[in-house]
């Protein structure tokens, strides 16, 4: 395959990286005053990159990179989440005098990395993509560097992220050493004729490193601290796009590279899924900070998504991808609501107690928040129920119904703290009212995501089902 054809397949990444580099120069010369312009340009770039996804299908660079239905599905989600994170940022940062032109550029670079991750069919492409995503994310976490919590979040994320990258790289080198190749296909061939101890260690290390990136238990410790400390738009970004990308990467490497060793990684995934749902559900109950609570919620939800992968079937993978699609809408909606939590002076408040009686002071916001909470809990009429159903359906289909039972039980535990927030908003005495919302765009985004996860979302099932099934079929 010629160089030009390979480059054509990577068109989305080319658009984003070239655009990000040009915008970087604009940012350097234009200063922070140009940040609004750069934000809109970045969103436009993400849209163009998203549009260019349709025409890409094939293997590029001699098997280092692959554009298929699976990667396109994941990239579409990633780009959408990234665009929302860029759109909600300027108002948040400008209120604190901390808006910088680099914010959208870092998100763009991170998106390039995530695109590489989901398209990687080689362990080294995987690693490069992952590092590009992570390095941008470390900076984003400490974006408000004068704020000690933000700086702490960045440092913590960096140190633990570097550790996880090290573990992952160690696993990669073990796999390379014992299989003699870094390509997913080659690794799968080597694993096909029996798995050696060295390969098993490599597999476990790779799984552990990736579990860190999706914050699955037992590699979740950084999540609450980083989510709490990072500026809210950044937290919204962390909870959505990188989760999708890392989950897609995990799915692809598990199916593509480690397919013949399914029985080996299945136990790991089942353990991580169970532990994440239980711990995410239980630890969230005592939280008083809404961002920490949402952090545990994301751990919990990642656990449910992992159940789909644990099934190891095309149906299961399709369920995982549908889950991530619905999940990012719910989580972005929740964080948009958190962005509205500002006291009369305009300062952000994050404690759950301040939500008391929101239904009387801001009925619209309370209704939207309640929809997101119900949906995250997976309560039937709302759309959040559907992917959970798919996931458990996939488990039952291969006879893992005890696991499905336990999963359903844990989702009941999880429902408790979501409902507690709804109770606080609707039945407690009103706390001081929030400052009125000033942004029509944010209200629009909240309304849009609320409609998407409301029962109206079921109208999208044929489309979502077909896309996620096509994505899963691309792997098997």
């Amino acid at each position, binding site marked *: 395959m010629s*160089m030009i054809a390979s480059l054509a397949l990577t068109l989305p990444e080319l658009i984003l990286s070239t655009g990000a*580099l040009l915008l*970087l*120069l604009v*940012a*350097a*010369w234009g200063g922070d005053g140009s940040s609004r312009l750069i934000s809109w340009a970045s969103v436009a770039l993400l849209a163009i990159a998203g549009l260019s996804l349709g025409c890409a299908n094939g293997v590029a660079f001699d098997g280092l990179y692959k554009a298929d239905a699976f990667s396109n599905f994941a990239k579409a989600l990633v780009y959408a989440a990234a665009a929302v994170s860029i759109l909600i940022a300027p108002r948040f940062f400008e209120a604190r005098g901390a808006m910088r032109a680099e914010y959208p550029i870092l998100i763009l670079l991170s998106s390039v990395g995530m695109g590489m991750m989901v398209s990687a069919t080689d362990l080294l492409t995987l690693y490069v993509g992952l590092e590009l995503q992570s390095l941008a994310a470390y900076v984003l976490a400490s974006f408000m560097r004068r704020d000690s919590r933000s700086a702490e979040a960045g440092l913590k994320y960096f140190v633990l992220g570097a550790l996880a990258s090290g573990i992952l790289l160690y696993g990669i080198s073990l796999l390379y050493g014992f299989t003699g190749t870094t390509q997913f296909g080659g690794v799968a061939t080597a694993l096909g004729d029996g798995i050696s101890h060295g390969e098993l260690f490599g597999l476990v290390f790779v799984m552990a490193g990736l579990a860190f990136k999706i914050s699955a238990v037992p590699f979740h410790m950084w999540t609450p601290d980083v989510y709490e400390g990072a500026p809210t738009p950044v937290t919204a970004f962390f909870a959505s796009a990188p989760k999708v990308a890392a989950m897609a990467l995990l799915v692809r490497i598990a199916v593509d590279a480690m397919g013949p060793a399914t029985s080996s990684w299945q136990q790991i995934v089942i353990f991580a899924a169970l532990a994440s749902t239980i711990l995410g559900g239980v630890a969230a109950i005592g939280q008083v900070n809404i961002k920490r609570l949402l952090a545990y919620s994301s751990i919990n939800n990642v656990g449910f998504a992992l159940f789909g992968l644990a099934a190891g079937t095309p149906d299961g993978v399709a369920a995982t991808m549908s889950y991530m699609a619905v999940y990012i809408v719910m989580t972005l909606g929740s964080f948009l609501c958190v962005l509205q939590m500002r006291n009369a002076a305009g300062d952000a408040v994050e404690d759950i107690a301040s939500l008391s009686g929101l239904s009387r002071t801001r009925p619209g916001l309370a209704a939207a928040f309640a929809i997101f909470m119900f949906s995250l809990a997976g309560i039937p009429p709302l759309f959040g129920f559907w992917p959970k159903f798919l996931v458990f359906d996939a488990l039952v289909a291969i006879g893992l119904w005890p696991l499905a039972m336990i999963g359903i039980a844990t989702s009941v535990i999880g429902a408790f703290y979501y409902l507690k927030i709804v109770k606080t908003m609707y039945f407690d005495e009103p706390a001081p009212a929030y400052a009125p919302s000033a942004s029509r765009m944010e209200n629009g985004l909240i309304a849009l995501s609320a409609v998407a996860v409301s029962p109206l979302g079921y109208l999208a099932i044929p489309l979502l089902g077909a896309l996620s099934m096509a994505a899963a079929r691309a792997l098997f």
Partner: protein
Amino acid sequence: MREKPLVDLSQYLPILLFLGVALAISGAFVVLPMIVNRLTGTAKPNPDKLAEYECGFPAFEDSRAQFDVRFYLVAILFIVFDLEAAFLYPWAVSLGGIGLTGWASMMLFLVELGIGFAYAWKKGALDWE
């Protein structure tokens, strides 16, 4: 026929030997004077002599003090550009074999780093005053 090994490791043995000799010579230059001045009696330490250097008064600042953050910046920039140079070496020796694609890829890489460099320059990372 056995293939010629890629690296002739026997050529490195003299370097190892040289390392030993050089360490011995420099070690001797450090240790011998200490022995000699024990023997000749020139070693007469006293607290004032052993105090850290200052212009006629006791040092009043901790020498393990904070220093300018720009030194860190230089260190980071050094890592970026030295690594870039490290990427250039294998490319430079094999330029004839990798053709236009290899050359163009590296030039793209240089342009990318050039953009990063321009950004750092414009942001004042290279200014010292």
